[in-house]
């Protein structure tokens, strides 16, 4: 498949278009400093949701410790950029945070992903707590419960947008690669996949590690955009927030996650004054989605441009299919 085909071209145009629209809105003052924070929050949540979707949606495993991996990225970048307050420091922070998160995910994933069932959920929950407790007890390096402050403001929404696009493209290519298809087959039927010679543990672990690394990237942006991080920002509630985005968008749909992160991010601005009532609404929404429309907004489907194109020359495809038969 050529890289520069019609589908990729249209996606490229869409990405550039949304970037242009956002940039225009900022230049015209439609998005002021306050809404820019919302924008970056949406982009961070997008990265987190895409990462969690790779774990839950593709491999069918259930991780509840996404905030823990985000904390690893945030602290790695926070500590490094305080030493080297430049983009080199930030890049190093992203790489180091990603590597540590990946290693932790490997250590947790290999034993728990051998098992069938929802052991990963409970193990990741424990791991996120362990990460938080370790961060709390690392003394001057992490500054305990008070957290790190004065992290240089290195991230802009450009960086957030760029990384969100990179993560999205990476996840999309993963989904349609042979590794991704093997991972999805594990989700569909673990026993059947195993009998076809798919090393189920390996593919589950790959998806889990990828999710953890993207969470660390999101954490890095969070640290360098907001400048202040503390352990209690990365608690269980944060993991649930991300889970809500994934469930709303549709478990297994990347474009669903992108849409849900945007919609919920905008909705949050309007629901802010309601405080904890907002949480009640989210909880009720979460339960009713699971009961009435467990597939979420998009199900496992994607907003698929190539299918739009394909519709045009459907007749041609039919001919081809007949030939195959």
């Amino acid at each position, binding site marked *: 498949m050529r890289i520069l085909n019609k589908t990729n071209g249209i996606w490229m145009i869409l990405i550039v278009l949304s970037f242009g629209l956002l940039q225009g809105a900022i230049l015209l003052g439609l998005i002021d400093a306050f809404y820019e924070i919302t924008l970056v929050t949406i982009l961070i949540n997008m990265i987190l949701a895409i990462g969690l979707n790779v774990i*839950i949606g593709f491999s069918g495993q259930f991780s509840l410790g996404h905030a823990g991996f985000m904390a690893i990225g945030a602290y790695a970048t926070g500590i490094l950029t305080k030493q080297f307050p430049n983009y080199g420091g930030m890049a190093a922070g992203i790489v180091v945070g990603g590597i540590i998160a990946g290693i932790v995910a490997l250590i947790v994933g290999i*034993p*728990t992903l051998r098992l*069938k069932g929802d*052991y990963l*959920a409970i193990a990741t929950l424990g791991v996120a707590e362990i990460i938080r407790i370790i961060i709390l007890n690392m003394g001057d390096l992490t500054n305990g419960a008070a957290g790190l402050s004065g992290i240089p403001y290195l991230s802009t929404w450009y960086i957030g947008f760029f990384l969100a696009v990179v993560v999205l493209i990476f996840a999309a290519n993963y989904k349609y690669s042979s590794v991704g298809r093997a991972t999805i087959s594990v989700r569909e039927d673990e026993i059947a996949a195993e009998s076809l010679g798919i090393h189920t543990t390996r593919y589950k672990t790959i998806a889990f590690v990828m999710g953890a690394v993207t969470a660390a990237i999101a954490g890095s942006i969070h640290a360098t955009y907001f400048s202040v991080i503390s352990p209690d920002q990365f608690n269980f509630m944060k993991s649930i927030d991300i889970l809500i985005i994934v469930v709303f968008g549709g478990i297994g749909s990347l474009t669903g996650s992108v849409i849900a992160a945007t919609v919920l991010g905008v909705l949050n601005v309007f629901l802010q004054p309601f405080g904890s009532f907002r*949480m009640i609404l989210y*909880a009720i929404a979460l339960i009713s989605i*699971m009961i009435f429309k*467990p597939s979420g907004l998009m199900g496992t489907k994607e907003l698929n441009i190539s299918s739009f194109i394909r519709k045009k020359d459907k007749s041609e495809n039919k001919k081809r299919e007949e030939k195959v038969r």
Partner: protein
Amino acid sequence: MENLIQQLINGLSLGSIYALLALGYTMVYGIIKLINFAHGEIYMIGAFVGYYVINYLGVGLIPALLLSMSFTAVLGVIIERVAYKPLRKSSRIAALITAIGVSYLLQNGMIYFVGPEVRSFPQVVENSLYTIGSFQVSKMQVLIIVTTFILMAGLQFIIQKTKMGKAMRAVSIDSQAAELMGINPDLVISFTFFLGSALAGAAGVLVGMYYNSINPMMGYAPGLKAFIAAVLGGIGIVPGAVLGGFAIGLIEVLISGYGNSMVRDAVVYGILIVILLVRPSGILGKHAKEKV
């Protein structure tokens, strides 16, 4: 040595609470293979019901326990009927997410309606100390351990000797076969939630008295640890939950007593990872081959 015995007594009373909670997790998991995340919140609501009936109705400990247990038992059944029953046929992830949603709803609902602040639990039992030899047992500790043993004996009786208990065991082994034998699985599942939630309510009242403080977030950490206790003992196995609960309670108290209390939680979560690594079916669990 005396210190050790003292710690063991403390561990036993904390372990009783975990055991009561772990029983609820393990029974529900045994019967519908669901990690009932809302269980910790039911325990929290049990504590609040105890708080309100003691403060506003002025009742003693036993009526407060019974009222709280009946309230949470009914609540558990309602949750099961409304949120979990429609999902009986869908994927386990869907049920798990719903359970998290319910837990989130109860927690934030309580924060919204009663406020997030910490309240002190009314003391209906004066906290006197019994000195036996050179170590001390508080009246509260005795009360917790005795209540737990009475409740466990009751549960054991229901599961082993009654018709409903037999039905529970049958459904947990094979729900379809049980249905063919004329057992209504929905009724049995509701009954399981009824029992488990009642035990959680009792644990809530006991813990409120023991620690003298309650708040809407109190269910999260003990709920998680009780689940770990259930996994440690072998999830789905009733005696395993008791064993696991006491083990986690003792480990926790010994670490706070002899080591760093900050790492206590980390060690408990670490135990979970280790048990998943070396013996995922738990201490009392048997390895079951999956049928295709």
